[in-house]
């Protein structure tokens, strides 16, 4: 190593790995339902896909994590996006492709994809 630039390159490469190890209260939290119902419906690939894409696109400030049963088992896999200061967005019946789209449009682009979200009519039915 002969320059600060080389040092910086290593730092950038490692950032994703170390950044997670702190309390990130201002982060967007993406929560995937991973109870038995979620896993059975295919939540694992959704979680993996989202975590991988967030890293790949270097979306700092986004934490992908998992939670237990959200209570709407028939709409699993469910993904919730919690953004500080905004209302929670709940995506239902997710799969890998939809997950990729959410990362692209919502997490990176800032626009929730309403056609995948839960709404009143889903709950009434």
């Amino acid at each position: 190593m002969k320059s600060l630039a080389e040092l910086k390159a290593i730092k950038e490469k490692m950032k994703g790995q170390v950044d997670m190890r702190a309390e990130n209260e201002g982060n967007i939290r993406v929560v995937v339902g991973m109870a038995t119902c979620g896993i059975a419906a295919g939540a694992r690939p959704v979680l993996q896909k989202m975590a991988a894409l967030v890293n790949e696109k270097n979306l700092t400030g986004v934490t992908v994590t998992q939670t237990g049963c959200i209570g709407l088992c028939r709409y699993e896999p469910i993904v919730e996006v919690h953004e500080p200061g905004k209302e929670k967005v709940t995506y239902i019946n997710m799969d890998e492709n939809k997950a990729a789209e959410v990362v692209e449009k919502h997490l990176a682009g800032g626009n929730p994809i309403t056609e995948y979200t839960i709404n009143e009519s889903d709950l009434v039915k």
Partner: protein
Amino acid sequence: MFRSHVLVCAGTGCVSSGCNAVADAVKEQLKKNGLEKEVGVTLTGCFGLCALGPIIVIYPEGSFYSEVKESDVAEIVSEHLLKGRVVERLLYHETVSDEGVKSLNDTGFYKKQLRVALRNCGVINPEEIDEYIAVDGYQALGQVVTEMKPEEVIKVIIDSGLRGRGGGGFPTGRKWDLARRLVPDAKQKYVCCNADEGDPGAFMDRSVLEGDPHALVEAMAIAGYAVGADRGFVYVRAEYPIAVKRLQIAIEQARDYGLLGKNIFDSGFNFDLEIRLGAGAFVCGEETALMASIEGERGEPRPRPPFPAEKGLWGMPTVLNNVETYANIPQIILRGAEWFSSMGTENSKGTKVFALGGKIKNTGLVEVPMGTTLREVVFEIGGGIPGGKKFKAAQTGGPSGGCIPVEHLDIEIDYDNLIKIGSMMGSGGLIVMDEDNCMVDIAKFFLEFTVDESCGKCVPCRVGTKRLYEMLDNITKGKGSPSDIDEMEKLCHYIKDNSLCGLGQTAPNPVLSNLNFFRQEFIEHVTEKKCSAKICKELLQYVIIPEKCIGCTLCARVCPTNAIEGKLKEKHVINQEKCIKCGACVDKCKPGAIVQI
């Protein structure tokens, strides 16, 4: 890339409570659940809560699991890492409240802490240089050698107000400045690190070496650039095998990256480091003895001046700092002198690491800003005294320091305040004592240590500490007389005034400080032959309360010296001449008729 990180504490405390087996179990369970590509496992340095090891922290949630057993691991992996359900049962109890799981930084232990020297301990993998680089590692070194003049570096350190963390508290920047300028035509200069942490109960430096060894490597290279040295030595005791191993790995990794060696950052600056192992002699923590030991000589001190900055290793100018002092350096360079001097008190800037031990709930490692009160450290961070006992005193500075009694609980801890009340900062051991500790016995304990560790070169220390120990020993055995106390005080001052090095000059401090604050206890020992704390065995008496004795003979049968007399169904009596105060009868007596007075 990992979506989740499992950090397992691998400091010495957790290693001895079994963290390696836990870490292996985590890896095995991850494999079993097919998660090994999603979840990373990292062994880190000390989190500080050594009493609660093994410790696991899982991110991004920041869940802090304490006292984790191998058998708990399967549940943590399948519940938390697979299904995302935090296993509350196994969390550090302070983080669980009625309102859900609290952040670790909101717990009593961490709330008032401020981690500078320990900032990477428990965060990065100490055996992985890339992780250190990811948290700004080696950036300070890069800046220093490519953008700053040595004088500028020294000015930053002087302006920061950093003082030596090894005990004396000499301003670090001034030390560097002297080493730079005192001998302008020196052919060779050295940078040296004192990692010979010898105070009983102190483990601050060990934790830095184990948790963040690259910080030391980087800081020593910076010191080398500032004073004009191209070689460095770390003197560390062989009794710290994990620290030595990780430091060795760090040095090799830094060499591989060209961060040690020739022409660092293409600046023309050369620097390399070597480890020297010490055999664990306390006197080798004294700087001149330490350097003698590095040179391969017998570890004995020599008179100062000349100070190491003028004539150090092999007669050459040498800068010598302690591990914790160095650990602050890269941060000061990166964040500026002003940032550092904004923390702490008027004459003591920054933070200080303390190793909490003795009668305290949260045994472990804490770092607080200078000026934090002893009460905050003991009762808020340390969690207070176990068993509802009363605080009696805290001992700082190890065998060279003294006690801080209860009336000084609100003292703001810094160099000057501690000296004012007859103690000293020392390297940071903080041992808490409660009402069950006898202060004569404590003084004797530290004297026994210094008698053992005195190198024997000078008479005041070699003979003086021995005589002092004998006087204390007599007092604890009921053979002391009131005149002994004054004699002891005289001897203390004689040893202080006439010893060659710091070991002897400070050895009487525990006695003087205890005499100052707890003189009544000494007087009680010599006049009434009584030890209120019931520690000095030979001043105790075991007696049988006649009203409670049922004459069962159990006590008489268990007594190894047949000191208990009495027939079946009659009251028993202990013959004080024969009694050796072993206490065996007390445990056997069912009605609780035998008491200590």
